[in-house]
């Protein structure tokens, strides 16, 4: 018998012929593969999960059928998960197997390509944030925020134990933050928004000597551009608390750089570049000041030289990491989102500074224009605040769930915030359908 494993009902990806298997067993002096297992009978399993083996074509067909069950809606959804058009060349280049099927760069000599790509990703974030250190990814914006809060607990300059975040923080971020700080001395408290950005007076009352960390977003969860970042940074600074700004790389191309308003840390969702709509998969952005270098969570790529004095890159400062420091590591993060970071850097380099700024300008103009069109409808108010907006804005209507259901029947998805509030997000991917959305709003609210 010379058929490979797949032909004999085995793994389709084990390349052994029956003859090879027999020769290997013979060399080991055993009769059967099962004899190699050292598992007590009391806990042995018979292998019967009841999952049938299927051919490749059947699996692909099955899954396409499954996904075809999703309704085809034009999405005007954002609130932290943003999709822009990703150039086809990004898909092609990032799918090269040398990138896609590689591993962490533990042997730098043979993984220079990915190391350089990650060094470039770090560099792009350094430029966008204005801060000198960026790591080569966290899981998502929620994890990045939570790790930033834990960082404040580790650095000597802060003495407090309160983490201050907006009351309007997205649930996924707040929930993740709560879990991450549960094992630390930190407690999470909130400050209110006024007009969809920070209520500066209330925040000033909330910040005191016990504050370790102040977090502000721009754009906020409803897309408002925060006008008082510098003042918030000053409040944090007065009480020796870390100031952390949440944003994304498209917004950062245009908005004031966080370093210039006093940010100590910048976090956010970098998947707005390079990552298509992916049901919430993310790319956590993390950048900080130089003084926190040895407290940074996650991997860092640094420049070095090889034995020929040629420039070379390597993972560095690994003594922060759990495979060396174990329970004294800065974080338990090991696997990260390196491949998504690669895609983000490719997308940024494809757009260049003019393309990035142009995309960001569109995010401002299109949101304003769609909001104005909606606002002109009877019974619709948009936006619900007096702010500048980036991509998205909140919308007041009489019966928000009813309006959303009517829009869904007409092929559109929007957020429902409460009984009287919706939220609409406009990007390059849905702006062409914006007039149809406005028309549908008019029908539903008539």
């Amino acid at each position, binding site marked *: 018998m010379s058929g490979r494993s797949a032909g004999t009902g085995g*793994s389709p990806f084990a390349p052994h012929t029956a003859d090879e298997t027999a020769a290997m067993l013979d060399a080991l002096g055993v009769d059967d593969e*099962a004899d190699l297992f050292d598992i007590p009978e009391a806990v042995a399993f018979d292998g019967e999960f009841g*999952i049938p083996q299927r051919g490749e074509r059947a699996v692909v067909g099955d899954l396409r059928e499954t996904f075809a069950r999703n309704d085809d809606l034009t999405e005007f959804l954002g609130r932290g998960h943003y999709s822009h058009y990703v150039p086809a060349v990004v898909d092609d280049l990032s799918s090269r197997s040398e990138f896609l099927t590689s591993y962490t760069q533990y042997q730098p000599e043979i993984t220079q390509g990915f190391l350089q790509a990650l060094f470039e990703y770090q560099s792009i974030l350094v430029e966008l944030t204005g801060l*000198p250190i960026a790591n080569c990814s966290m899981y998502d914006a929620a994890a990045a925020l939570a790790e930033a809060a834990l960082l404040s607990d580790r650095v000597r300059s802060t003495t407090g134990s309160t983490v201050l975040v907006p009351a309007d923080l997205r649930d996924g971020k707040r929930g993740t933050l709560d879990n991450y700080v549960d094992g630390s001395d930190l407690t999470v408290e909130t400050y209110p928004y006024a007009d969809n950005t920070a209520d500066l007076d209330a925040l000033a009352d909330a910040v005191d000597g016990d504050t370790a960390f102040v977090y502000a977003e721009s754009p906020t969860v409803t897309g408002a551009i925060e006008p008082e970042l510098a003042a918030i940074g000053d409040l944090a600074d007065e009480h020796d608390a870390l100031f952390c700004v949440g944003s994304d790389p498209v917004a950062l191309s245009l*908005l004031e750089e966080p370093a210039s308003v006093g940010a100590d840390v910048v976090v956010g969702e970098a998947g707005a570049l390079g990552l298509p709509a992916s049901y919430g998969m993310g790319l956590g952005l993390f950048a900080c000041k130089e003084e926190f270098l040895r407290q940074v969570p996650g991997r860092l790529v640094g*420049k070095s030289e090889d034995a020929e004095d040629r420039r070379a890159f390597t993972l*560095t400062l690994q003594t922060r990491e759990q*495979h060396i420091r174990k329970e004294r590591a800065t974080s*338990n993060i090991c696997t990260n989102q390196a*491949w998504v970071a690669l895609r983000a850097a490719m997308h940024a380099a494809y757009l260049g500074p003019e393309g990035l700024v142009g995309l960001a300008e569109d995010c401002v103009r299109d949101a304003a224009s769609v909001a104005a069109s909606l606002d002109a409808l009877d019974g619709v108010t948009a936006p619900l605040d007096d702010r500048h907006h980036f991509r998205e804005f909140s919308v007041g209507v009489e019966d928000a769930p009813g309006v959303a259901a009517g829009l869904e029947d007409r092929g559109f998805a929007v957020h429902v915030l409460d009984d009287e509030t919706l939220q609409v997000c406009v990007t390059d991917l849905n702006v062409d359908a914006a007039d149809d959305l406005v028309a549908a709003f008019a029908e539903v609210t008539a």
Partner: protein
Amino acid sequence: MNYDQARYGDETRNEPLLSEKNATALDPGEGSALPDDLTRDSLELPGLSEPELARHYTRLSQMNWSVEAGPYPLGSCTMKYNPSFADAVAADPNAAVHPDRDPETVQGNLELLHGLQEYLATIGGMDAVTLQPPAGAAGEFTGIAVAKAYHEHHGNDRSEVIIPASAHGTNFATAAMAGYDVVELPSGEDGRVDVEALEAAVSEDTAALMLTNPNTVGLFERDIVEIADMVHDAGGLLYYDGANLNALLGRARPGDMGFDIMHYNVHKTFATPHGGGGPGAGPVGVVEELSEFLPRPRVREVPGSGGATDADTATAADGGELADHSHDRGHGHADDADGDTEYELFDPEHSIGKVHGFSGNWLVLIRAYAYIRRLGDEGLLDASAKATLNANYLASLLDMDVPYGPFHHEFAATAGERDAADVAKGMLDYGVHPPTTKWPEMVPEAMLTEPTEVENKRSLEDLAHAFNEAFADTDEELDAAPTKTASRRVDQTSAARNPRLSWHALEGDE
């Protein structure tokens, strides 16, 4: 086999950085729709034409090793071949939706998530699974948070997590992150858990024991039933680190061994590409009494819908409140036109909350589901068979000593008097990636090797040749290695002493 890796660039540098190819500075605020005080004054970034971009990244790719280029036998990392069909399925545009969609409108995604929950529960012998953790270490954190919530719910004040010295560093970091004191357990003389030492360590302070089985040198913990009883009798929980699950597929199930919580590294066991370090996904399975603490939301079948049967739902330890993820819009899709089973999200009653901003690493989960469906029972069983056969066959071909045994899917050879890291550099010129070196510490100068099932006899013999040739090289030869990679030996000390972490930091440096 010999090997020459592509390298580009001149005498002083490899392929130029993006910033060295083209960088432009501009004032983004100029002509902006926003007031000047909200915009930045400068932005300096590279922007490449598409042909330049294609060449840059193609060159970088050619300076990078991957599992599709050759063996990648990093112990405890399980780097398998990643089948292409799973990539094709993950790229299905119908699956590319926003996570805030009304659940009724994304029944396809929920069907897949539910199916994967069920597959993983069955494979692990667990009752309920969450797919939210975005990596194995995130799964560990989720699992320990669930254990902590369980103990707190029952009014138990427990402060310690016991971890064998040979365990992955993430276990220690995870326990510390969750606020536990770590009790390190020395290995016994046979490389396994020292049951007497465990007995001494277990107490009413024990929240959990974190264990990998087979352990990090490929040894099955034969006393697992006794170990589980010992921990349970003290009121602690048993946590299974799924890093080595590939060795056990279809042979034994953590749930049957007495584990209460486990994580699955689906990017390892179920072969999804690891993309240079991530993404992965770290679903967590638990026994029924812990299911109410899992992260929210979870997916379940709508009772009475379509094809739902008692048999289908028998393994799901559901319960809990219907999640408020869908507003009552008075126009439900109660009857799916095709009579398909319908799915809904719900929040477990005492959920720990969220461990990811949205729903985890979706594109990885799709691939894992597709992979499990492709393999089926026979394929899963054969994967563990060939992984174990390969490890033992490769170990038998090495000139180095390989302590302990018998092995499952991995083993730790010792370089003895040689420096394991140097031997690894010597191997790089032979067209293979070297194993994990200097870990675990229980084997001196360890070379922790895991060939996985995707190498055949000839490939293993080539791999053994690389090991043996490098091991036989003189110190001078090893010091000079590697010679055929894009870079020669990289100075990691100077990189750490003088950190230069962005191209901004290189200005004036070169």
